């Protein structure tokens, strides 16, 4: 029983960066821009968060830096795709390469050519009073670090933003039919840019979660495909925050299981276990197959004339 509780708690923790990135991706994709760049935004967030926290010893500043790092890359993507009508997926890929190079370069460049050993204490778990004493559920859900609570508490607001507010309606209109949205007075280019950058803030915080809360350090390319898993989770959850959360938990559980199996000493190689999240994501995508309805105008650039 203890093993299962630990496994579930780990799943929730591992799902957190995926969830933050996926929520950011939803914002971008609902407004009609593929979010292939969230991998790079996470990496920028992780880098900026660790460097800022390491240099200032101020966690809050670190989190701000993470959000800023993600948003900075997002604004490059936003400018390229919305203003210059660059191809969204390949631009996303290019910005992932850019962020990989930039973070790996700067982590050495800032500290005189050699990457410093940055050891930060990972964020501690906070027990929620009363709730954490619920058997099983309390241990799984209410003894988590701060950013995990933040990520899961964001799901409902993002849902309401998209479904119940004027802003969300405008975003979805731009994602479904930018010409119509333009006709009723909103500016699709600006809406898309804002959505991508807001998504970058969330994805950057996802990177911060990974770097500051999970690992307490920055290493080259440390996001290691988590952004792509988050993209898969968005498709699995059909662009609906609550369902995407379930998708993230699913992939989180798969990773937690793979990690735990390494500990149990089963005769499965660590390489095969590391493949598990990707193979499972592919299997799930194959399983849902067609009939996934994406925002109608996603991937298409918009011009006023």
């Amino acid at each position, binding site marked *: 029983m203890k093993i299962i509780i630990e496994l579930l708690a780990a799943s929730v923790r591992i799902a957190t960066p995926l969830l933050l990135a996926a929520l950011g991706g939803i914002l971008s994709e609902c407004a009609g821009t593929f979010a292939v760049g969230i991998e790079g935004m996470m990496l920028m967030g992780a880098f900026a968060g660790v460097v800022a926290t390491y240099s200032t010893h101020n966690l809050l500043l670190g989190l701000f830096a993470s959000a800023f790092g993600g948003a900075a890359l997002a604004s490059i993507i936003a400018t390229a795709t919305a203003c210059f009508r660059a191809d969204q997926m390949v631009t996303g890929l290019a910005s992932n390469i850019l962020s*990989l190079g930039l973070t790996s370069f700067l982590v050495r460049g800032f500290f005189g050519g050699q990457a410093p050993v940055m050891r930060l204490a990972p964020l501690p778990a906070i027990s929620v009073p009363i709730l954490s004493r619920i058997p099983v559920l309390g241990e799984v859900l209410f003894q988590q670090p701060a950013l995990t609570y933040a990520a899961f508490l964001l799901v409902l607001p993002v849902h309401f933003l998209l479904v119940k507010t004027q802003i969300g309606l405008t975003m979805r209109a731009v994602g479904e039919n930018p010409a119509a949205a333009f006709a009723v007075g909103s500016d699709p280019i600006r809406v898309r840019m804002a959505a991508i950058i807001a998504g970058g803030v969330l994805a950057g915080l996802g990177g911060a979660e990974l770097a500051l809360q999970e690992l307490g350090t920055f290493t080259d390319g440390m996001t290691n495909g988590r952004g792509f898993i988050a993209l898969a989770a968005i498709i699995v959850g059909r662009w609906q925050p609550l369902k995407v959360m379930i998708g993230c938990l699913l992939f989180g559980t798969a990773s937690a299981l793979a990690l735990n199996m390494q500990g149990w000493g089963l005769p499965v190689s660590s390489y*095969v276990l590391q493949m598990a999240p990707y193979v499972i994501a592919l299997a799930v995508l194959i399983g849902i197959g067609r009939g996934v309805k994406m925002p109608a105008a996603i991937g298409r650039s918009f011009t006023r004339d």
Partner: protein
Amino acid sequence: MKTVAGKSVPETRAGDSLWRVVNKGSSFNRLALSVLAVLAAFAFTAVPISLSGKNPAVAYWALLRGAFGSVDAITFALNKSTPYILAGVGVAMCFRARIINIGGEGQIAVGGIVSSWIILTFPDLMSSVLIPLALVGAALAGAVWAGLPAMMRLRRGVHEVLSTLMLNFVGTLLVGEVLNGTMGEPGAGFPQSPLFPESGRLPILLPQTDLHSGILLALIAVVSCHFVLWYTPFGFRLRVLGSSSSAAIYAGISLSSTFLSVMLLSGALAGVAGGIEVMGIHYRLIEGFSSGFGFNAVAVALLGALNPLAILPSGLFFGFLEAGSLAMQREVGVPSSLVYVIEGVTMICVLCAMGFIGPRSRS
């Protein structure tokens, strides 16, 4: 999926502009565009170099010397360019048909695995049999690795961007897995296979240097893809598919078979690139040998404006850039990961230019 003329069409949702410009722009414009993109990238990249407290001019000068400074430097760079050109041509063919195959890294990885396996299993074959056999094996492996996402797309509607990305991770982890298992060198302390026998190494082109014959294969691939793209029915079909999938349907072109064939072709080229890398450079399979190659291939294809002949200079550019950056790191202490910054910015500039001058797509 949308339906055209009673058939369901796998929808390609990528932006229209990239492909239109590539099809229509004059060759001078395309060249100017690529040169400008590279210059812009070097200009942008001066910012992080200055941020790290180094002089960009010094760094770029070291990079240039490192790339062209000696015969060894040049042959090293030519060897570096070989897999980029091979995989880049494949990516360009896919992008022509508006198929975003970004799974080069995984395809290169499995190509390397299979060719290594063939060489280590049949070490006694003579080299004129073993090397072609290993290359064919590599091509088949790469083709399978690209065929999987093609089938996922055609059968189940899974977008190839996601599936090829996921298969990159699986492919590179597979290298570690086989080295951890049966193909690893016992007691090496590093995930690598035993050294290949002489018969399994690509012949050296220039005596006294490391330049191996892989670059010839890259040349052949470039010229054949140019021929296939512009002078064969298959090339025509894939260009039509790239211009308009509805036009392709009305012209009676089978979308799924064109989709599958171009993915297989592209995968095979990447697989060969993987085979060449292990047989020409390392003489063994080592973990992480394909790291970053697939994304480089995309950069190469874009800078070459998806034109097979232009892939050659574009691939050489990135090969020399990378070789030069390693020297730059050694000599002036500027980290070589700068290459990825230059690469990313170049790609974004090319994409922006293509999007901006391309015809306005109506949404």
